[in-house]
């Protein structure tokens, strides 16, 4: 099967800025692909090249096996897009904007439109200028998700959404995956991608740093644990998969690889755990740890 997205060695420069510097990205049909990278790493630029909005300076980019620059119009009938920075027409209502995008793409699914408006709790009769950032994001999401297409390109789609709406969005993407659709989901939040994606590509400064299934990337995801115990903890530093153990009196803090989480917690129990917090690592921490100076 030809990949839906096939990018190899992609280069894009803006003046002296090298936004993409030999980027690779491959997305198979039916997969939800996480496209991770810190702000300014080149995610939106990659997507704009894929949509034929920017012309690549080097490398190869194929969408459905065709050239996204030359065959833009035909390819766009098969995809829906949520931009990273949603701008709408101040004088149009949200409902008008949704219908307009639908019509320009070649039609939208009416029942899906109604269901999504309801799920996202969006008032379509309001003028776009009166919407908050989160509501503008919802307009773009409803417009894209109401389309019945093969590929959904979502550029940081949850920015500005509250946690409840993020959950709604998560459900929507799961439905798409169950229906066999392909999704490219860009994000700078590791946890969001972990929840939804089959495979992940991680980029930084326009270059790949990792790609693979989430299981393959497990070694990247460490959890930060801190606990309050009755007696000072000893012997933690020697455990496999535990890093940066710091014991001060009855407080202990350490990072642990996901695979070693259970054994580390077992080790704590005999010391009398009074309080425990664990935080998943942010992408930024992960980069600091693994790729400091990788530039």
């Amino acid at each position, binding site marked *: 099967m030809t990949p839906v997205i096939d990018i190899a060695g992609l280069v894009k420069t803006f003046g002296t800025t090298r936004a993409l510097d030999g980027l690779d990205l491959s997305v198979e049909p039916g997969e939800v692909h996480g496209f991770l990278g810190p702000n300014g790493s080149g995610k939106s630029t990659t997507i704009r090249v894929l949509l034929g909005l920017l012309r690549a300076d080097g490398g190869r980019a194929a969408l459905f096996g065709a050239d996204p620059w030359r065959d833009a119009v035909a390819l*766009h009938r098969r995809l829906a897009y949520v931009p990273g920075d949603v701008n709408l027409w101040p004088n149009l209502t949200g409902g*008008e*904007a949704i219908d307009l995008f639908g*019509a*320009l*793409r070649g039609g939208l699914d009416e029942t899906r439109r109604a269901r999504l408006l309801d799920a996202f709790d969006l008032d379509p*009769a309001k003028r776009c200028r009166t919407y908050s950032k989160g509501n503008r994001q919802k307009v773009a999401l409803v417009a894209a998700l109401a389309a019945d297409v093969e590929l959904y390109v979502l550029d940081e789609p949850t920015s500005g959404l509250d946690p409840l709406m993020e959950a709604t969005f998560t459900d929507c993407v799961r439905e798409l995956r169950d229906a066999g659709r392909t999704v490219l989901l860009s994000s700078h939040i590791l946890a969001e991608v972990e929840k939804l994606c089959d495979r992940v590509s991680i980029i930084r400064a326009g270059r790949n740093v990792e790609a693979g299934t989430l299981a393959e990337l497990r070694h990247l995801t460490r959890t930060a644990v801190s606990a309050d115990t009755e007696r000072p903890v000893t012997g933690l530093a020697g455990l496999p998969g535990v890093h940066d153990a710091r014991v001060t009196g009855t407080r202990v803090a350490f990072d642990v690889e996901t695979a070693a989480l259970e054994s580390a917690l077992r080790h704590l129990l005999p010391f009398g755990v009074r309080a425990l917090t664990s935080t998943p690592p942010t992408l930024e921490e992960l980069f600091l740890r693994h790729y400091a100076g990788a530039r």
Partner: protein
Amino acid sequence: MTGLAGTRRLTRLALRRDRVQLPVWLAALTLLEYGSAVSIVEGYADPAERTAFVVTSANNAALLAFNGLVSGDSVGATIASQVLLIMLVGAAAMSTLTVVRHTRQNEETGRAELIGSAPVGRHAPLTAALIVAAGANLVLGVLAALALVACGLPAGGSAASGVAVAGTGIAFAALAAIAAQLTSGARAANGLAAAAIGAAFLLRGVGDATGDVRGVRVDPGWASDLSPIGWAQRIRPYDGDHWIVLLPLLALTAAAAAAAFALAARRDLGAGLLADRPGPPRAGRGLRSPLGLAWRLQRGVLLGWVVAVVVVAAGMGGVGDAVGDVVASSDAVADAIGRLGGGGSPVDAYFAAVLSLVGVAVAGYAVQALQRLRTEEGGPLEPVLATATGRPRWLAGHLLIAAAGVVLLLAVAGATTGLVYAAATGGNWHLTGTLTAAALVRAPAALVLAGFAVAAFGLLPRLVTAITWAVFAACLLLGQIGQLLNLPAAVLDASPFSHVPAAPVAPVTAAPLVVLTVVAAALTATGFAAFRRRDIG
């Protein structure tokens, strides 16, 4: 006062953003004042002719309504009666756009939110906008006064002229500040402020037209007392210099500014005091295509232009008869109008001259309408082009509306002028068709500017606003005062309008119109090709 913290920085930021626009405004208005003054100094050197001209102007209601208050027959006073009004309206328009740009437009685009989160006082953005607008008007006042002094006019009257211009501009800046609090969109705020300018213009027109005429002086009727523009005219430059009229202007400015600040303190960032009504939750049939979207985005601007063109053209038609008399009474005017219009009967020469001006103005509509291209590119264009809408189709939608608008506006201008002239003279109905056709002769030249805007959008998107307006201003100035300044033919020929046959007075030949159309098409094609090849953003 902490409410003003950061004003200095915001003022500098606003000045930086306006570094092209404001100088263009100031240069254009100053040149207009200077060029008109020169033409009157040269055209009416003979006092008897001048007095005859002034008496005719004072006794024609339509001339009074559209040209301005007549007060005195010295060279300076004659100039004031012909240009002061345009300068007052120009200053008011410059103020409105400046204030709205740095207040409501910032809120609409979300820039103000960013600024608001920095250590910036609540009243700082409005204060900064008013400072910039007031500063621009003060500079304009000084430049206008210097332009008059440069023509050898007395310093006192020149200063009074400059002060009237600056004072009116500043008063309308304060009024625009109120408009910016009321609406939640920048366009609506500009529209509201433009309506205020229009109302002030019309009230003063009614007052002047219904005033008492005493020789070479007119005492306007009461309607003029309701208009800030009416007050400013009453400074009567070179005819007594009544500085006292500054007092009501200053009082209005203070009251309007205070009201704007009070309103700003009562509302949330981004909200307007006039509530946004809910709109249709579904898109109508007409909106569901690139052309439908372009129409929806452009129709407000076009409607505004239609109204303006009807009003101005009615005025042009209304004064036509009187102009014939004036021209007949003065060799110098006949000569000047003849040069602009190319010879023939005085009335036809007059119509040719005003229709040429309308042609350039309508090109201004095309340039304004096509600014939308860049606005859209900074806004929702990206997701639109990510649908099955190709770039040419999107661009063609906007161009089609702009081009059709040019043709419509010219036809409306010609037809209105002809109808009102026929009604005023009680006959000559056949002139309506002649003038409509004559107006449409200007279409190819106006479309050259539209084509230029498309080419600039394709080739130099970042500079499109600055260069299209600069080229438009150059065409306007070359057409109005290029000959009076004795510029070389090569410079004059650079403007497409220099090649338009001066219908209805001169015969219409096909060759220049065909060439202009080909140039317009070539520029458009260049723009399309470049736009297809470049990055979006």
